[in-house]
């Protein structure tokens, strides 16, 4: 889902960058004001960033000739909360872009917006809502699924806005509704595991 250079028009790239910058600044402010960056949280942030980074290098082949790798935005939102989750994903996306050219430098704002902000906020919100009624695993599956779907739709909307076309929204939306089920299963499994083996990780 990493949009490369050349796929976005300049105005859309700049608007995406501006929106992402506002969210990152807001996250830093919230983290500072609410003292969220404790020593434990920094360790979890580092481990989770590393885990998401390496998991994104593993693309799974799927029937029909497509592939999927974990994006991890929903997982980051659930484990770290919205503000630290945004920073976790932004860190991963920046390293991927700057060091490995995975995602274009002109599309960094768009990529952070879809995978680093929208997917985190969606995953976090859905999980918090569903946890009142369902188990960790089910809440994690649905949160992970919708986080990837929403990231796909936003990514498609950004591409569509660049070229005045609804097609990217349709393609990215439909594909990620399907692919999101796998993201959801992974997210639900990890959350379920953490709830049993490392409850302190989910306590924030």
């Amino acid at each position, binding site marked *: 889902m990493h949009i490369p*250079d050349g796929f976005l028009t300049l105005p859309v790239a700049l608007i995406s960058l501006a929106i992402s910058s506002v969210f990152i600044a807001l996250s830093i402010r919230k983290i500072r004001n609410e003292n969220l960056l404790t020593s434990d949280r920094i360790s979890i942030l580092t481990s989770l960033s590393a885990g998401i*980074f390496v998991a994104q290098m593993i693309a799974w*082949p799927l029937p029909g000739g497509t592939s999927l790798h974990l994006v991890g935005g929903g997982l980051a939102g659930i484990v770290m909360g919205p503000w630290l989750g945004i920073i976790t994903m932004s860190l991963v996306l920046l390293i991927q872009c700057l060091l490995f050219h995975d995602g274009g430098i002109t599309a960094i704002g768009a990529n952070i917006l879809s995978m680093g902000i929208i997917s985190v906020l969606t995953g976090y919100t859905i999980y918090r809502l569903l946890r009142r009624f369902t188990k960790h695993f089910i809440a994690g599956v649905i949160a992970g699924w919708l986080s990837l779907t929403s990231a796909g739709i936003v990514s498609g909307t950004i591409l569509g806005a660049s070229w005045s076309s609804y097609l990217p929204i349709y393609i*990215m939306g439909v594909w990620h509704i399907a692919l999101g089920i796998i993201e959801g299963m992974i997210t639900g499994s990890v959350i379920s595991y953490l709830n049993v083996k490392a409850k302190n990780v989910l306590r924030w």
Partner: protein
Amino acid sequence: MLSKNTIIALLTLLLISPLFGITLADMLGYHEPLDLVAEELGLEEEEHTWTPLKEYTFPGLPHWLGYIISGAIGLLIIFAIGYLIKHMAVVTG
């Protein structure tokens, strides 16, 4: 800072990553939904190169090994950033 289990899990993922990221990708020729959008709209990636590690390669090494080394470099940078943040957070209280 990192538990033994976390390190083992990260190293395992890192070592198997070329199997999925390179070998199977080349063998099965799969692509992401974004590639379908590019095909439909006729978009082409602009070639800018600012890093020798582009697409998780490492100059002079076979792709699979470069993939692992690149991943290891990425992990080390993340750990270094984590260490710096932790250190600064302690310094600033």
